[in-house]
C-alpha cells in the first residue's frame, strides 16, 4: 500500500479484506461464477471497478452488495486471490455505518431481525425473527401457507431460549456495532 492519505472507505476495505482493490485486472471470473449474477443490477467485477475508479457511492448504493449471498465462489476462483465475498461484507458494513439506505431494504431488514434475536437471547429464535421481519417489511402474509406444517412438526419453538451469559452477548454487540440493530 503506497497511498499517502487513504480515503476512510478504502481504509475500511483494507481493514476488513487485508487486500487492495487496485490489484484486480477485471478478468470477470467472479461474475462468471456468481450464482446471484442474474439477479444483480451490476456484476461483482464492476463493483470492484467502481472502487478502483473512486466511485464509492455507486458501489455502496448498488443492490449488488446486498444480493451477494456470501457463497464465496468468486473468492475461491479469483486469480489474484482477492476475496470479493469479504469485500461485499465490508461494503455492506460501511453502508450501514454511513446510514445509506439500500434500494431494496428487505435484505437489511432480515439481517436486523436475525441479529436482534441473538442480542436478546444469545441464540436464534426463529419464530421471533420471522415475526420481526414480517412486521418490519409489512409483508405479513409471506409463507403463511407453510406455517401450519412448520408449527405442527414443532420445527419452530414457541418460546425463546435465553442463555445464561446473555449480558456478555449484549456487551459483544455493543462493542462490535456502531449502529444498533433496529
Amino acid at each position, binding site marked *: 500500500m503506497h497511498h499517502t492519505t487513504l480515503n476512510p472507505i478504502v481504509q475500511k476495505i483494507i481493514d476488513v479484506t487485508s487486500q487492495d482493490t487496485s490489484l484486480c485486472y477485471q478478468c470477470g471470473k467472479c461474475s462468471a461464477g456468481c450464482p446471484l449474477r442474474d439477479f444483480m443490477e451490476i456484476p461483482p467485477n464492476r463493483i470492484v471497478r467502481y472502487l478502483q475508479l473512486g466511485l464509492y457511492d455507486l458501489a455502496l448504493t448498488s443492490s449488488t452488495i446486498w444480493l451477494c449471498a456470501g*457463497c464465496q465462489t468468486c473468492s475461491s476462483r479469483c486469480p489474484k486471490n482477492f476475496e470479493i465475498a469479504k469485500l461485499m461484507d465490508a461494503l455492506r458494513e460501511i453502508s450501514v455505518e454511513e446510514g445509506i439506505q439500500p434500494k431494496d431494504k428487505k435484505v437489511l431488514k432480515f439481517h436486523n431481525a*436475525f441479529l436482534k434475536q*441473538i442480542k436478546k437471547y444469545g441464540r*436464534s429464535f426463529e419464530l421471533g425473527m420471522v415475526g420481526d421481519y414480517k412486521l418490519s417489511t409489512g409483508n405479513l402474509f409471506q409463507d403463511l401457507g407453510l406455517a401450519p406444517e412448520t408449527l405442527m412438526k414443532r420445527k419452530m419453538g414457541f418460546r425463546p431460549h435465553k442463555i445464561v451469559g446473555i449480558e456478555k452477548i449484549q456487551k459483544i454487540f455493543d462493542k*462490535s456495532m456502531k449502529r444498533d440493530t433496529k
Partner: protein
Amino acid sequence: MNFGYYPGCSLQGTAKEFDLSLKEVLKVLDVNLNEINDWCCCGASSAHVMSHILSVALPARNLLLAKHRGMQNVVAPCAACYNRLKVSQHELKFDEKMRMKVEEILEEKISNGVEILNLIGLFQKIGLGKIKTAIKINLKEIKAACYYGCLLVRPHDILKFDDPENPSSMEEIVSIIGAKPIEWNYKIECCGASHSIDNTEIVEQLSKNILNDAIKHDANVIVVACPMCHSNLDMRQKNILKKYPQQKAIPILYLTQLLGLSMGLNYKDLGLHLHYINPVPMLEEKVKVEEVTI
C-alpha cells in the same frame, strides 16, 4: 470416543431432525457428544454482513467455552456454524490486531487449539471402517446426489477441507454404506442461503436448478450436511412444485439420516417425518426394511 459438541441454533429448531439423527447414529457407533455449556449463536449468515468484528467475536466466545471445558475438538454439524467457527479461529490466529480487539471485547485472553470438525470430518475421525461394520440394511437402490453447497468447502484456504471445486468425501461415506453416489454438476452451487426469507423467489430459482440437475442425473435423493441447504431444497421445494406442475419431487435427507437408515434405525427416530417432501414413499420402494411405519 468423545467429542465436544456445538449444535448451533438450527439443530434445535428447523433442523432438529439433523440433531436427532446424528445422535441416533452416534449411539450405534458408541460415540459421545459433550455439548458446550451455554453456547451462543455463531452469527450465521448475518453477523458477517453487519459487523466483521461481531462475526469473529461470537464464535470466539464459543471456542473459549469449549477450551475452558478442556475440549480437544468441537463438532459443528451445521455447515454454517462450522464455517463461522473456522473462519473466526483462523482470523484470531493470524490477525493480531483482530485478536487484540476481540480479547478486549470478550475481556479474556484468546489462545488457539480446539480442533473444529464438520459432519464429514467427524465420520472420518470415527473411521469409515467402523461405520461399515454397523451396516444392516441394503441401500443399493438409493442413488444419492451429494450436495455440499458453499460453506463446507469455501473458503478452502481456511477450511482446508476436501476439493473446493469437486469434493468427494461425502460420496465416499455414501459408498461405504452401500448406496450409489451419482455424478452431477451442482454439488457446490449456492442455494441462495438466507435470501430464503428476503428474496424467496431467488432461492426458489436457485434451488430448482439444483433439484433438476440431481433429477436429470437420475438421483432419487439429495443428501446434505447443512440446515440452510436442507431448508431451501426441502421446504422451498413445496412451492416450486406448486409453481411448476412439470416439476418432479425429490426427497432431501441429511447424511446422518441416510447413515441411520443403513444401520436399520427407525424412521421416526431419524426424524424422517419432519421433512416437507415426504421421503417415505421413495424409501418404501427402494429400501428393504421391516420397519416402515411412522
